[in-house]
């Protein structure tokens, strides 16, 4: 496959480095354009991918081990599904404690804020540990993102 051919699976593999996040955002934008997604849906997709992948890079140990992170985007009827896979430490964001809205600024932890934003902006989150890899599936719905 040459670089100019579109990838039919809409799959992007990046190094576990923060500098790679911008490439993911641009890639998600191109996907949204070709799929004619609304600006609100694109915002939700970009935000959740950013939060999930930034958490992997900062906290999973994948960066130290020079692991890759793979992100896939696909349409499922009106919905969009994003699958994020990494080989870092086992971490299930769906079982992280529910975020209380912080009443003081000291309580606002960045990782916790990210998970809360994923829960708020996606229509559903599923986590699986498969073959030593974390697999996070996020579902996005146009009505939910409106």
């Amino acid at each position: 496959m040459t670089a100019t051919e579109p990838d039919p699976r809409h799959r992007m593999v990046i190094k576990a480095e923060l500098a790679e996040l911008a490439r993911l955002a641009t890639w998600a934008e191109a996907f949204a354009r070709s799929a004619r997604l609304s600006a609100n849906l694109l915002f939700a997709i970009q935000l959740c991918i950013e939060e999930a992948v930034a958490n992997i890079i900062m906290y999973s140990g994948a960066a130290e081990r020079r692991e890759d992170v793979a992100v896939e985007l696909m349409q499922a009827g009106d919905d969009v599904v994003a699958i994020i896979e990494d080989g870092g430490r086992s971490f299930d964001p769906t079982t992280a404690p529910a975020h209380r809205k912080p009443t003081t600024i000291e309580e606002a932890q960045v990782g916790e804020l990210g998970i809360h934003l994923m829960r708020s902006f996606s229509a559903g989150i599923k986590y699986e540990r498969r073959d030593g890899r974390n697999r996070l599936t996020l579902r996005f719905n146009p009505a939910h993102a409106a």
Partner: protein
Amino acid sequence: MDLAVEDIAEGVTKVVLRGRIDTTRAVLIELPFNTLAADKRAIVVDLTAVEFLASYGLRVLLMGAKIVNGKGGKLAIVCADNNVAKVLRMSGGSELIPVFEDQDTAVAAVARRA
């Protein structure tokens, strides 16, 4: 430029952020923003031209507010009713930092009364 700083009326400093405040950019903004928060007592952060705000950027804003509040100052945000405002609302950020849709109200909220 990462952040544009301008002293406006009534001893209020306005900080204008633009474009995408993603994780990478928020890391770059963190230090200059904290320095500014340590320096000033009345800050209005204009997010009107911000298209994207990730949790790290939100945390930078919250930490800045903590520094300003800690010395008896005030920090407020100006933001249109968009997805960035939704990020502030959903995370509880808007309960910790006052958010206004127009600059005049935000300035009035942080300015020290004579």
